């Protein structure tokens, strides 16, 4: 059964320096509060996995939490670059960052294969792309039935999955609504999982085919209202697109970034 913990305790108990951590949420339900707690606890040498690193990993990379990033699209959607990610890749600031990049289709398949307990995923992908030349985790295999050449990538099996969701009931069952992304797959693919939720309620109010993670499939739950902001939680608050645009100016400069981090992360405790 999922254990209810404070966000501080959940991060402290389940994330260790050197872990492979996948914090997911496809534009929606990005676990920012958890990311900030990881920064405050000064976790180091993490291998971070995420399809779209987004601002949350830009902040964690800039804060020095990561040694490696596995991703498939590393930009600020509709705005431009992730400047902290670029600074780490181009100038090794604040530390060297190893990167391994995929396409979205391959990463989605890799998460699904992880959830399915398989060692690899197979897809009709990467045809004609240079990505297999720079990522040795992309191979090609022959279909044993048709002979078709298909791409294969190892499944994603992180030590820890971290996601945000709308709500949990008091038993620890979790409801995810809207753009569900790969929230379910990453939790099932990981050894341990932390789920932050907007609120804990008596009744989930889930429809019969809703995306629900049973309590026994989740390790820890932490209540974190507005825990996805400036991303969003459908039914609770909208995406703060104005902040996504502002981030471009904040992250462009190391000093501006560090002072933002000090004021908005280090000097604010976990809920």
């Amino acid at each position, binding site marked *: 059964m999922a254990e209810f913990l404070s966000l501080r305790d959940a991060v402290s108990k389940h994330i260790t320096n050197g872990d492979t951590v996948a914090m997911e949420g496809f534009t929606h339900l990005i676990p920012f509060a958890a990311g900030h707690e990881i920064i405050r606890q000064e976790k180091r040498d993490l291998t971070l996995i995420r399809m779209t690193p987004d601002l949350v990993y830009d902040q964690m990379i800039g804060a020095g939490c990561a040694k490696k990033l596995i991703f498939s699209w590393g930009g600020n959607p509709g705005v431009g670059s992730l400047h902290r990610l670029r600074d780490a890749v181009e100038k090794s600031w604040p530390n060297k960052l190893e990167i391994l990049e995929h396409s979205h*289709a391959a990463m989605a398949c890799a998460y699904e294969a992880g959830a399915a307990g398989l060692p690899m995923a197979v897809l009709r992908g990467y*045809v004609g792309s240079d990505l297999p030349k720079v990522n040795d985790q992309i191979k090609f295999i022959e279909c044993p039935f048709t002979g078709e050449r298909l791409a294969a990538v190892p499944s994603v099996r992180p030590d820890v999955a971290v996601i945000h969701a709308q709500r949990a009931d008091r038993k620890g069952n979790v409801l995810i609504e809207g753009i569900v992304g790969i929230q379910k797959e990453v939790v099932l693919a990981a050894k341990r999982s932390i789920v932050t939720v907007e609120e804990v309620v008596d009744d989930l109010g889930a429809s019969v085919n809703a995306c629900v993670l049973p309590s026994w499939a989740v390790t820890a739950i932490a209540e974190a209202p507005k825990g996805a902001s400036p991303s969003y939680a459908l039914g609770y608050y*909208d995406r703060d697109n104005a902040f996504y645009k502002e981030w471009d100016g904040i992250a462009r400069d190391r000093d501006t970034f560090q002072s933002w981090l000090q004021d908005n992360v280090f000097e604010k405790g976990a809920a």
Partner: protein
Amino acid sequence: MSLEFTSSEMMSVTAARALTNDMTCFVGIGLPSEAANLARLTHAPDVTLIYESGTLQTKPDVLPLSIGDGELCESALTTVGVPEMFRYWLQGGHISVGFLGTAQIDRFANLNTTLIGDYREPKVRLPGGGGAPEIATNAKEVFITVKHSKRTFVKDVDFVTTVGFGRDGTARDNVPNIGRGPTVVITDLCILKPDPDTKELVVTSLHPNVTREDVIEATGWEIRFADQLETTPEPSAKELEILRDLKARTHAHHASTQSGQQ
């Protein structure tokens, strides 16, 4: 009577006109999204728009800033998970057109959104592939829209993130279960299409008031022009009005601090 319009508006309207009502379009963010929604609000009200966040048949009132804005989900017929999106709907063969933008494009319509320079020591690190590598091969055909400049239109891309026709134009030959690839590239200066034999991009239509020299000057290889070079029809007053309304609505929406965020 001639209307006043910008080259960006000319590009968006021309790109929108490439879509028809019966298409199922996998939409990239930015210019493709603007064009696809303009098509839906003008001549193609029933065009099916799909974004990689899993939102099927979506009808946003404002253009999304990201591929996963709430607007897309709330106005969609239904929303599926991301693995299902790529596996069943895209790889499964349900997408007629992938509509993409890019940072660099070369003469064989290969797209680079990964980096400028050398992979291990990039001059400029770009976002990466995202959905594009598989959209470009699993959709039945691909439309590309991008602003025309020498920096963008290069002879050979620094990195093939997403295949057009490969380094020599033959990358799709004899590959089973692959789409036709790029069939049209729409810029703010002209329309380009791949030569049926060599697959090299050729200018087939110049936008109004654009000269051959303008295109030559903005292209990083010796660009060829079709024998029957056309002039792209101007935007109509209605198209311009709807595009401007859409952009104004979108701008106001994304600039406002979201309610309840403070």
